[in-house]
């Protein structure tokens, strides 16, 4: 009897325990499910710098081919409420899986002499070119191909696959949005270019810079591309003749000075590559040795730990090397206004690796502002019409976009008029490394024209002649100088009448913008007319460029509907009657308004292309995913 009673008691206890377990977990499943329906879902990820997946449109076709359900699934996981916070927890958990140790992101195991793999790199480089269709009305220069899904699975892979790499579509063309986008769209740009560079992956945590843990992108470049780069720059000099000095500066990156020796086999030598490029320059192109001066100052804070760019201090030292080449004496560092952002800076390398080590070792963002007077202006990079004043130092830039501080980002064609009084005018061709460099030129040239190689709508030689430049500078980091797409860009600027801008839209007669602005006029048209007024009001503007506006009207007005809507929204939110005011108000949006409003998701979900132009795109996807 006693035995039975004990059993009964035990059963009752077990039953109670089961009821509790059941209630707790059913409440969790149902509760979390219900709450996740009620809470607002995020649309962008700040830390990953990308637009999140969107809710799919239902159609019988999309249902039957499975894309509806697949997208629904992606949407649900991607837009989980508090996802950025949860992702941070996930990074902490991933870190707790073992003893913190060097992390290799997309690094392939190398067991032999680095020289040997150069050949295989070349083959791979060729193989991973992919065809990407471009929606009409949008010009595309850089479209990172998708990272293979396999690599995404393990969380350590770089989440570049959905990064909206190309942001300059309709909104940029409308001209009213330039300054407004500010740092917001600028950073999308540099997210784009990092993946375009042929790299060997990223090492985090095995590397120290300035006494703290850092991430470093490994150099995977090679001579084949380097030689092409040198040849094309030499042909600029041939075209321009003796009256224009052509300088070429190839900038080393952090991997060259901070990679521990034991990892050197994972990265090719930048020094050797830069020397190789310089040795191939002909026709009197003047090489600028930034390497030596950067190396001499490598104990100073000249690169970022969490970002693939150099710091403003690094750019300063490169500037001193450039002054050497142009026969000037640079102002001492003490002659600049030094400012440091209060906010810590966690840059692109964190965006790619999501490695908590980087988040825990943020950068200090210091910049040097010239005390000289200058006037900065932004031109529409396609039409070359003036669109905004540009403060050059966009001091509101924040978050992972902080490097957008300089010039406001990559895609802007900037003109700076200075009080240097040297009688020299310079046209500078650059990728993002040049952004930090350009402001230093204020003390050396009367007029500075900053051109991003990837975004310029005119023939470069013609332009250099038009503005009457005395000097031309090509400044690129060594990854870029080894990247075929960027070299293609330099070549196209030389040979094509429309530079690197590719018009893909056939003229469509039906007017697309149906939404109207405050005055009841179609927004697109208003911004056009505003643009022209500005042009007439500006005397610095060469006459010829007004014609350019006329010629290029149509591509701007024939945007695909999706991105037009984006542009319309942008314009509506800012109501740009006076550009100057926009300037003021847009300091904050970089923090408060997420980049959605400014960056059309051009690259991620192209709105059904009607006239798609296949474009060959090279991406290091294979390398990154490893």
């Amino acid at each position, binding site marked *: 009897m006693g035995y039975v009673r004990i059993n009964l008691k035990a059963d009752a206890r077990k039953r109670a*325990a089961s009821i509790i377990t059941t209630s707790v977990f059913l409440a969790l499943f149902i509760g979390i499910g219900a709450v996740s329906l009620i809470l607002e879902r995020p649309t962008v990820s700040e830390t990953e710098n990308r637009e999140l997946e969107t809710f799919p449109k239902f159609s019988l076709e999309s249902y039957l081919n499975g894309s509806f359900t697949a997208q629904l699934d992606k949407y649900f996981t991607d837009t989980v409420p508090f996802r950025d916070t949860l992702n941070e927890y996930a990074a902490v958990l991933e870190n707790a899986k073992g003893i913190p140790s*060097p992390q290799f992101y997309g690094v392939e195991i190398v067991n032999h002499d680095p020289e040997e793999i150069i050949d295989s790199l070349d083959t791979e480089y060729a193989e991973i070119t992919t065809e990407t269709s471009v929606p009409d009305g949008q010009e595309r220069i850089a479209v990172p191909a998708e990272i293979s899904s396999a690599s995404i699975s393990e969380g350590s892979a770089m989440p570049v696959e959905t990064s909206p790499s190309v942001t300059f579509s309709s909104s940029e063309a409308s001209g009213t949005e330039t300054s407004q986008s500010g740092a917001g769209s600028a950073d999308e740009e540099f997210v784009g270019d990092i993946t375009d560079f042929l790299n060997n992956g990223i090492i985090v945590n095995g590397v120290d810079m300035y006494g703290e843990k850092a991430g470093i992108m490994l150099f995977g470049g090679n001579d084949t591309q380097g030689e092409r780069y040198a040849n094309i720059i030499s042909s600029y000099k041939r075209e321009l003749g003796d009256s224009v000095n052509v300088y070429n500066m190839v900038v080393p990156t952090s991997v060259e000075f901070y990679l521990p020796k034991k990892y050197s086999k994972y990265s090719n030598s930048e020094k050797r590559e830069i020397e190789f490029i310089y040795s191939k320059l002909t026709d009197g192109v003047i090489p600028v040795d930034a390497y030596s001066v950067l190396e001499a100052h490598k104990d100073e804070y000249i690169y970022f730990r969490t970002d693939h760019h150099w710091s403003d201090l690094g750019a300063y030292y490169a500037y001193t090397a450039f002054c050497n080449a142009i026969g000037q004496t640079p102002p001492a560092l003490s002659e600049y206004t030094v400012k440091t952002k209060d906010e810590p800076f966690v840059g692109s390398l964190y965006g790619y690796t999501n490695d908590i080590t980087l988040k825990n070792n943020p950068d200090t963002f210091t910049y040097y502002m010239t005390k000289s007077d200058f006037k900065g202006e932004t031109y529409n990079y396609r039409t070359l019409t003036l669109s905004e004043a540009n403060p050059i130092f966009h001091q509101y830039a924040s978050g992972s976009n902080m490097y957008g501080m300089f010039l406001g980002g990559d895609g802007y064609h900037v003109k700076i008029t200075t009080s240097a009084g040297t009688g020299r005018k310079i046209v500078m061709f650059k990728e993002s490394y040049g952004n930090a460099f350009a402001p230093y030129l204020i003390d050396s040239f009367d007029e500075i024209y900053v051109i991003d190689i990837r975004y310029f709508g005119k023939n470069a030689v013609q332009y250099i002649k038009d503005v009457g430049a005395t000097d031309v500078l090509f400044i690129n980091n060594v990854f870029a100088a080894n990247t075929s797409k960027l070299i293609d860009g330099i070549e196209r600027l030389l040979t094509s009448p429309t530079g690197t801008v590719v018009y893909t839209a056939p003229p469509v007669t039906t007017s697309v913008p149906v939404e109207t602005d405050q005055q009841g006029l179609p927004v697109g048209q208003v911004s056009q007319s505003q643009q022209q007024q500005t042009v007439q009001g500006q005397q610095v503007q060469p006459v010829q460029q007004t014609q350019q506006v006329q010629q290029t009207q149509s591509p701007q007005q024939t945007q695909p509907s999706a991105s037009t809507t984006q542009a319309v929204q942008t314009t509506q939110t800012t109501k740009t009657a006076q550009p100057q005011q926009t300037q003021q108000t847009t300091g904050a949006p970089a923090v408060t308004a997420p980049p959605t409003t400014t960056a059309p998701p051009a690259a991620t979900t192209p709105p059904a292309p009607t006239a798609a132009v296949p474009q060959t795109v090279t991406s290091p996807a294979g390398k990154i995913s490893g």
Partner: protein
Amino acid sequence: MVFSDLLFIYMFLPLCLVLYYIFPNTTYRNGILIIFSLVFYSFGEPIWVLLLIGSALVDYLNGLFIDKYKRRRSRIAVLGVVMSLIINLGVLVLFKYSGFIMENINALTGLSLPVRHFTLPIGISFYTFQTISYTVDVYCGRARVQRNFLNFLLYVSLFFQLVAGPIVRYTTVASEISRRRFSVFDMSKGIERFIFGLGKKVIIANSMGSIADKLLTFENAPVSTAAAWAGILMFSFQIYYDFSGYSDMAIGLGLMFGFHFDENFNYPYVSKSASEFWRRWHISLGTFFRDYVYIPMGGNRRHQVLNIAVVWFLTGFWHGASWNYIFWGLFWGFLVAIEKLFLRKVLDKIPSIFGHLYLLAAAVAGWLLFYFEDLGRLKQCFWGMFGKNGIPLSDDITLSLLNGSCFIIIAAAVFSCPIYRIVGEKTDALAARSAAAYTAAKIGENIILIGILAVSSILLVKQSYNPFLYFRY
């Protein structure tokens, strides 16, 4: 959709549970389960829902046919089995093996017949076997015929085991299809099982898998000895935790809805011989081949070696249309055969540690065959394991990967032994002895479960892509 998916855990499952338990009546509940199962299936490729329903319909009719002629004691009844086999295996061969077969015919004869690779309908390898088990069992008198099509469709489409097993035989669930009792014991056990399975998959298997893939995806460089061994060992953990985790989740889900499935895994890595391993690994597949191929062919009594060869060829081939799977199957068949011949007696006499070591070595060698569909890379990895690639034995990346996940690797090794089961039994025993101790143990268990659920969910936010290995078999 897969079980380790936030959409499933926090949307599909709660909705299904609520709707299911709103209805008191089994017929409605079955209806809910069918609807949810078809929706679940359609998350992959909606078009194949039709194939699934068609397949169910065919074998439902075959069952009726067999039953009708059996009652008349007519030999025609066997035609129902033949039809079932032809149709099911035909579909399987068409979708899964036709490309492989054509390629090999082309390679052998020098012809260039057109090779078409179909996308494999999800779960087809599992549900075709399930419906075959039904018709054969009806014919042999082990199962009674199912006259209600919806009940039969429920059996075939039940989302718990539809896409990646276990291969649930009709006889296992026949009575529960029409009569199930709710039990809070089952419910809580089911939840526990589900969450443990989720943790196995998301926390352990995915971590192991990411290391294995990084180490074994050598393309431009030969693989170092450390990388080859670590990669294969991590894959051995991955495939066990992945697949047994899925089975745990399936069994747990079954319990939540009142179904009792058989176990599919029983700590295979603690085995001392190949035959024991296969009594503990993917049990539903092993017993399927035993009962529907090996024994009908004559089992131990007639041409046993041939029977073993056929069964293990099929076991390997079932896993994929590629030679490496066939070699993998035959490799196990070879071990099982020599164990039957003499090795068993030797193993029984020597200390059991040698049996364990022998089995682990065999398992790792097996996974090496299993992992590489490309035989060239298989060879490269094999030489790498024995330091024959002419490179340093170790490399930075391997060491840092192993270091960076060392706690999880230790956990994976520990939990592949029956720790959890022993702890569970001890806890249950406490219930009879001390209320306080039992309460404490249960509270501890629930906290661990919540922890696993929380950690898995957070990791899932980050891992947007985590298919199960067995999803495509």
